[in-house]
């Protein structure tokens, strides 16, 4: 079942002088099995939006429906079983490595599943499986999470969410501060989790990651949903007005168009298909 936003608005500090409308009349669906990107400039409402999905924030108006779990502005309609909702929707915050707290890596990763009601042995088994998924072997089990490298810590934190098998995984800027190699390794990890059947929701500023991994992109600006599109089609629109960086390949296509060579972009996915299209466009000129 999809995640459905029905006319969701949200304001911070309601009925105070600091009242601020952060989300405005959002209507959209996130189909099960998507690899979705959420993009937009800093302060556009991306993080506020994802916190509506697992009920860390409640809408000021409208409702969010996650597999029948309702997060509504109306208290009476809200699902009582928030814990079950949060088990299904895993949320990895930005810089999750700062949330580690246990004595050992294994205990830290097992904390989530234990909290959601698994027995100690079950939780440890789940933790071991999650650690294997993020590429950390048993030599890490008994180490303190605080003595690991930055990248390893982040993997431990992500394993802590994977360990309770969420149906939906929301990751907020998971590649911030990583070099290109580290960023692609991290994204390949999410791609494999997505392949295994988890719906992936990625909040990011990096359009190259959107192009490479995501099948759909939601664009936010000043709390409004301004585009719900495929990355390929969105990148051909005017992205500058949302302060988003057009990937090099699409910027090039736009320049070429402006300079008078119209390239058929329908089949372009990467540099090789771009080169094919250029050769074709020149031949038919």
């Amino acid at each position: 079942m999809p995640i459905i936003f029905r006319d969701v608005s949200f304001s911070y500090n309601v009925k105070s002088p600091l009242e601020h409308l952060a989300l405005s009349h959002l209507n959209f669906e996130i189909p099960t099995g998507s690899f979705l990107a959420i993009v937009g400039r800093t302060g556009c409402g991306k993080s506020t939006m994802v916190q509506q999905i697992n009920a860390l924030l409640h809408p000021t108006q409208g409702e969010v429906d996650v597999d029948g779990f309702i997060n509504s502005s109306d208290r009476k309609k809200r699902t009582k079983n928030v814990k079950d909702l949060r088990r299904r929707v895993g949320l990895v915050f930005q810089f999750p490595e700062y949330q580690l707290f246990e004595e050992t890596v294994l205990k830290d990763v097992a904390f989530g599943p234990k909290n959601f009601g698994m027995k100690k042995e079950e939780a440890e088994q789940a933790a071991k499986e999650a650690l294997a998924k993020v590429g950390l072997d048993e030599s890490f089990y008994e180490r303190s999470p605080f003595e690991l490298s930055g990248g390893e810590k982040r993997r431990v934190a992500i394993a802590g969410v994977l360990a309770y098998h969420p149906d939906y995984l929301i990751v907020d800027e998971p590649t911030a501060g990583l070099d290109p190699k580290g960023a692609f390794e991290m994204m390949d990890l999410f791609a494999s989790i997505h392949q295994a059947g988890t719906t992936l929701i990625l909040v990011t500023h990096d359009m190259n990651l959107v192009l490479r991994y995501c099948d759909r992109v939601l664009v936010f600006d000043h709390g409004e949903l301004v585009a719900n599109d495929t990355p390929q089609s969105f990148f051909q629109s005017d992205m500058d007005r949302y302060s988003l960086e057009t990937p090099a390949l699409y910027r090039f296509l736009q320049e070429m168009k402006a300079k008078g060579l119209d390239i058929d972009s329908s089949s372009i996915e990467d540099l090789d298909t771009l080169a094919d299209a250029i050769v074709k466009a020149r031949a038919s000129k």
Partner: protein
Amino acid sequence: MPEAILEVKDLHFSYEAGKETLKGISFSVPKGSYACVIGHNGSGKSTLAKCIMGLNSTFKGDVLLFGEKLSPSSVYRLRSRIGIVFQNPDNQFVGSTVADDIAFGLENTQVPTEQMEEIIHSFAKQVGMEDFLEHEPQMLSGGQKQRVAISGVLAMKPSLIIFDEATAMLDPKGKKEIYALVERMRQENPDLTLLSITHDVEEAANADQVIVINDGNIVYSGTPKEVFSHEKELKEISLHVPFFFALKRRLEDRGLEIPEDVDSLPLLEDYLCR
């Protein structure tokens, strides 16, 4: 050959005994040129930067700055001719306003107060921050912060500026601001030598010389054109090739002849549209 501003000769460095982080690095950077050292995290490029800046002093081999050997007795004198822009813009502010911050280095070198205002204004102008002199550095965007840091460095009239991952924490807009500024600085000061330690290959596409480091060794060194012709080999060490070079090679593979003088993306666009 113009005189070498920086020469590195057979540089070795170890953090722990028996395990070398730098395994014999040699290169030289001529006066007025722009060199980029690229490599992914853990390649040894930051260690190399620290050796050149005199922050790692226990290296073997030689670092020559302005023709003089870097040593404990020469390091302070040599460093006074080098400007360094670090990765995290928040870690390099000392003043409570942009103007104070640019003034800090000048005060340290006893520039008379009456001259200072004019100097500060002219260097803030060079980086396009003259309207922000009374602003608090904390309130600026990442790109603006790095521009202030660069103006503070320029005000010291260095012969060599080292950028140590200076754009790594900036968003795409901030990065572009800095690249444009570097381009302008080079046009305005033809004698200024720049060394950038980076993992951004698009930046390296604009350099005169690219040095690729992997596992403590130089694996490629030369002009961007030479270095980035090794697309496959670079991919094996997790480095990609700038858009222009990657596309040009693919077009040539498809039988398109592209003249020598088409050596930048705008020129390639023009050529293809002709």
